[in-house]
């Protein structure tokens, strides 16, 4: 059987490259009836902030051609309830668990990590959602500025010995520059992409389909954008890149590996079928055999 394990540095090895993405698998235990999580390469939780957050008013989502828009507004239970109610379950899973961290200041991100560290429960590490508005910078997202990204990353690097992955937004002028800033700040990996800015409205009334108007597009519609961004990021940094955006099938996973991704995350496709991640992981050896690839390493970055 083909070896699917993926080494990501800092002593972290995934049993296969297929993880599930933040915000698309809840806090973790919601779909435990449907699948054996230990077959997943990894799991990233919903983004967690220091205090509980209400999130945006409805409607928060809308389907679009081959995709969906969302503005959830980081609705979450806050790190205290998360550590008490969800972390014990997650820490018991035989898969790599990453807590996704959100914040509106550097200190808030750090406090979330400190709270998880204090719980002393075993997780693989953190994914830093830098697409959060920075209150001290007029609500501009951390992730649009290389300086802010580097400062935030080095601050969080000091807060944990665990794996630190910085999740990049595609809504920037030069994603490679932001990726390099995360690398300089001490990130073990970068993941990309978060959702693409989008909008939909009713032509007859002018009413936005998602309450906030501006919102985030995901699903197969963004896959070409995601591939281009992962390609750029892979060229720009020497740390591992975790790719995502519109993955629906094993073929899509291989596309991301070929543009340089070490591992991948599945997002919106989980809503169609929460088992899709492990199904794709099961199909991967067969597909690699079909394209006569001995393993992932041999095809990584082979797009030309």
């Amino acid at each position, binding site marked *: 059987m083909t070896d699917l394990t993926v080494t990501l540095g800092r002593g972290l090895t995934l049993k296969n490259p297929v993880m599930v993405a933040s915000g698309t698998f809840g806090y973790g235990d919601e779909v435990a009836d449907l699948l054996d999580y230990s077959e997943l390469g990894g799991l990233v939780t919903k983004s967690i902030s220091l205090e509980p957050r209400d999130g945006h008013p*409805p409607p928060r989502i809308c*389907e679009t051609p081959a995709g969906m828009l969302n503005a959830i507004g980081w609705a979450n239970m806050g790190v205290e309830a998360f550590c008490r109610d969800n972390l014990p379950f997650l820490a018991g899973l035989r898969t790599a668990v990453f807590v996704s961290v959100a914040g509106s200041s550097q200190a808030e991100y750090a406090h979330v990590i400190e709270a998880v560290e204090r719980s002393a429960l075993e997780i693989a590490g953190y994914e830093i959602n830098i697409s959060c508005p920075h209150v001290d910078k007029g609500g501009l997202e951390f992730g649009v500025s290389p300086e802010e990204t580097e400062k935030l990353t080095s601050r969080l690097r000091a807060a944990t010995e665990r794996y630190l992955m910085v999740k990049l937004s595609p809504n920037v002028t030069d994603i490679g520059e932001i990726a390099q800033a995360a690398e300089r700040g001490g990130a073990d990996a970068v993941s990309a992409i978060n959702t693409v800015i989008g909008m939909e409205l009713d032509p007859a009334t002018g009413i936005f389909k998602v309450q906030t108007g501006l919102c985030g597009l995901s699903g197969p519609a963004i896959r070409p954008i995601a591939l281009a961004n992962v390609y750029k990021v892979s060229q720009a940094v020497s740390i591992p890149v975790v790719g995502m955006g519109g993955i629906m099938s094993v073929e899509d996973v291989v596309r991301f590996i070929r543009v340089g991704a070490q591992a991948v995350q599945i997002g919106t496709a989980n809503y169609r079928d929460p088992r899709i991640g492990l199904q794709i992981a099961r199909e991967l050896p067969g597909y690699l055999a079909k394209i006569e690839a001995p393993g992932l390493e041999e095809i990584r970055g082979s797009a030309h």
Partner: protein
Amino acid sequence: MLLEECEVLSNKTLASGLYEMKLEGPGICAQGRPGQFVNILVNPSDTPLLRRPMSIAHVNGTTFGLIYKVFGQGTREMSSWQPGHMADILGPLGNGWWPTDDRLPLLVGGGVGIAPINFLHQRLSQAGAPHQLIMGARSGAEHFLEHDPSAGITLTTDDGSAGIAGTVIDGLKAAISRQDNQAVTVLGCGPPGMLRALQSFTMSHEIPCQLAVEEMMGCGVGICMGCSVECRIDASLAQAGEGRRYRLACLDGPVFSAGELVLARD
């Protein structure tokens, strides 16, 4: 909750603009309770991308039924399914209506809200539990039951072509007037305007009421946080600061107590 491959047994017009589909689904049938729903993968290709939520409208043995209206691409495609078609269905999902004390249940359904109300009516009838059923539609052609107040079935139509001319509130008042002071409870499902009317009627008459809401759903199982429903909060939960908070239609609902719902939007 389970994922079941369900065979379509029949799929026919039930009344004007309404379809009824029967599916084989032993697991969903064994677990399903009135007010719960299933989430249907319409097409194995990427479009439509998301599943379509549908209430369980009845259960007979290992067969369950859906009653649905064709709205857009997903339901149009569902309406073309022939017997023998295999559908990928996730369910049963959400929480149904919960049992009340000894109050007489008044079941109120309008629009596609008649589907879950029909299941509740079926379950209460099978249990021999007294109740009244009030169903509203625009015209008689949209109804699939007969107006029969003596059997506990009251129909209303906007155009007066069947049953009582008026809204379900008129039907509800008629049903209440037939009770000799017995305490009642209202269990309802329907379009937003009807839910608002039921909420204000039951609150002003101090009648306990549980309403099933519909919200856009991304997943149906609590992993997208997309199906938020605005609720009034009690003081202990006031940390949201704005006097309200959001709950999830798919996990916390779709049935909520009428008093906690903030029904502002159409």
